[in-house]
Structure formats: C-alpha cells, structure tokens
C-alpha cells in the first residue's frame, strides 16, 4: 500500500492518462491519504470532470485501504466526537451547505468566511480541543482563507476539510478551488504584467505580501498576509499550491518548488499545533 502526501500527489495526478477517453485513477493500493492530497485529488477530478472527462476510480474492496474512509468521509468519525457533538454536527449538516461532517463544498458568498470559521471553532470546542493561539487564531485563519477564495477564485465552489491528528498534535485545515489561481489573479493588474513570464511560485510568494492582491483598489490585499503571520505566530506551517508550483512557509523560512503537476486554482493546507 502507498500513502498520498503533498510530496507525491502531483506525481500521482501526472500519472493519470488524461488523453484516455475514460482516464483511470487507481486508488486500489492507497493505504493513507492526507487532507491536502485529498482536496488536491478531488479538485483534479472536478476540474477535468467539468471539462467532460469521466474518470474510472479504482478502489480497494470495502474494508481495505482507504475505501471505507473515502466512502464515509464523515468528519465526526475521524475526530472522535462525543455523541452530543455528532448530533450537533448532523444538525449543521441538515441546516447548512457548509457542514464539517465531511469534505464539504463551500459556496462563495460574502459571509461564508465568517460562517465556516464559526463552525470550525464550534467543532473544536465541542470536541474539547483547541490550537495554539486559541480560537481567535482559528477564527482569523479560517475566515481569511475562505474569504480569500470567495473574493479571488471566480469559482462558485471550494472544497474544505479539517482533520485532527492526535499523535502528531496538530490540526490540518485544507482548502482548495480550481478557479483563477494566484498568477492569473495578479495578471489582471497591469502592475504585475512582468509575472506573465514568471513561474507560479513567484506569484504565490508575491501574493503573501500585504496590499498585492487588491488589484489597484484602495482596499484589500491583507488576507493571505494575515493567514501567514497568524499561522507562524501559532508555530504552524502553511503550504500553498497554485498552477505548477508550491510555497511552504514554516518557522523563518519559505521554500518554493514544483508540484510535479499543473492544476488551476489554489490549493492549500494550514497545520496548527494543538494544545
């Protein structure tokens, strides 16, 4: 069995034969998949599916590999909720399109950042957990990330998930869309014409600077800056992929490189230490 991490999900997608009439995505020998590659893989499927590709997804028999996980994909079963919390989550699921029971699609709207942030904090509090920096940090990170998608992606849906890793002592927040992407977003502003000849990594790095992404208007352009600085203040890490490249921020370093595959939009993961 193999595991899918952010280190190999690009190569995994690159191996899918997209020239085939019905491309095969072989998950039959996958024994583990992290939140980021799960979101990335989902958006890979969605992006090409919207353009007419119908995939054949091979999975191991139920009970083997990640088949159960993929079949259920219920957040509560991975988060060890109390019975009350499960009940509450199901209520959310019925009431709202942005439940956290699952890998969920988030609908772009002006209030969606605030709504998802509230749900994430509620879920963690119900489960008796918090991250370093408390729920104020979570509020800010989730709101800014989701709001950033709603403002810039030009897609109506993003995929979001949260997972707690008790033994590794961190919470993972993964969010992705297959929309405009960072380079294309910046290229809409003539100030960044020079990026046309640059790699995606340069656009990602630039987008993390304040007042870059506001397209020349007087307001905007602090969201990703706030996410980056809040994640670092919590002792966490931030990983962003857009187009062909990625940037990872941790401690006092930012590392850039290639994903091994080109996927439009932005896919990212924030890892936050738990307390």
């Amino acid at each position, binding site marked *: 069995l193999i595991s899918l991490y952010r*280190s190999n999900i690009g190569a995994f997608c690159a191996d899918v034969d997209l020239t085939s009439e019905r491309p095969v995505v072989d998950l039959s020998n996958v024994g583990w998949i992290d939140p980021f590659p799960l979101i990335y893989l989902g958006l890979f499927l969605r992006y090409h599916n919207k353009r007419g590709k119908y995939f054949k997804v091979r999975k191991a028999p139920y009970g083997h590999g990640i088949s159960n996980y993929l079949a259920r994909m219920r957040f509560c079963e991975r988060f060890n909720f109390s019975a009350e919390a499960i009940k509450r989550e199901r209520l959310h699921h019925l009431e709202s399109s942005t439940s956290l029971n699952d890998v969920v699609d988030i609908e772009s709207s002006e209030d969606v950042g605030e709504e998802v942030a509230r749900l994430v904090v509620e879920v963690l509090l119900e489960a008796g957990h918090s991250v370093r920096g408390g729920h104020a*940090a979570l*509020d800010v990170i989730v709101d800014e990330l989701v709001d950033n998608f709603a403002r810039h992606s030009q897609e109506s849906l993003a995929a979001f998930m949260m997972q707690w890793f008790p033994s590794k002592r961190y919470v993972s927040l993964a969010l992705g869309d297959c929309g405009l992407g960072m380079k294309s977003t910046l290229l809409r502003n003539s100030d960044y014409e020079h990026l046309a000849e640059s790699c995606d*990594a340069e656009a990602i*790095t630039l987008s993390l600077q304040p007042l870059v992404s506001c397209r020349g208007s007087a307001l905007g352009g*602090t969201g990703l800056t706030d996410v980056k*600085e809040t994640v670092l203040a919590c002792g966490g890490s931030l990983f962003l992929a857009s187009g062909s490249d990625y940037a990872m921020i941790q401690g006092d370093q930012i*590392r850039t490189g290639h994903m*091994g595959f080109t996927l439009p939009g932005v896919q990212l993961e924030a890892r936050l230490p738990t307390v």
Partner: protein
Amino acid sequence: MRLRIERLVSATLGRKRGREAYEALLAIDDGQSDLVISLDGSEAYSLSFLDEFLVRMNENHLLRRTTFETDSPLHIKKLGRASEIRNVTIRRSIDGRTEVVTPVPGPTLVETSSSGPPPEDIN
C-alpha cells in the same frame, strides 16, 4: 464619545464587517468629538477587518480623532501591523494616557527553492 466595538458590529472578521463597523460609526459620530473605541469586546480581529475599518476612518479624517482602548497584546500587535502596512498613525490609551501604536513589521523569511518534491516539513 466612548463606545465599545460591539456597538458597531457583531463580529470583527472580514472586510464586510469592517465596512459595517465604519458605517455604524458614521451614523453616530457628531463630526467633532473625540472618539474612544474599546476593542476588548471581541477576541478575534482579522487584518482585513481592521484594514477596512481603519482605512475608511483615515480617509474621512475620523482616525485622527480616535483613540483605541485595549489591554490585549494580540489586539495591540494587530493594530501595529495595520499601522505599518497602511502607514497610518493609530492611537491607543493606556493607564489614562494616550500613545501612538508602534508599527509592527511582518516577519522576515529566508527564501529557498527546491527542485525536489514538496516537503512535509522544512526542517
């Protein structure tokens, strides 16, 4: 005039709320009095909220009449960050006196590039 932030807005995340807070402030401002706004009624301030609120206040000359009240180091740091990014002067009151919030620069990151696959951890 003294007021608490929750009189202006119910949540302090995002640009929409920043705009709402500004509009609520305009509705009660008399155009002359000094304003003292307590920030301690909310735990989480996003930079987007503060940026929207403060830039609009600055454009309409309200910021120069405003002093923010807070003891929270997190809130003070966020105000300092907003001040540095927008190059605006923000005042806060501490122990009965007023001082200018010190602008806070962002972290300096060492950039490296890699030809290998993405890492799980940098270190």
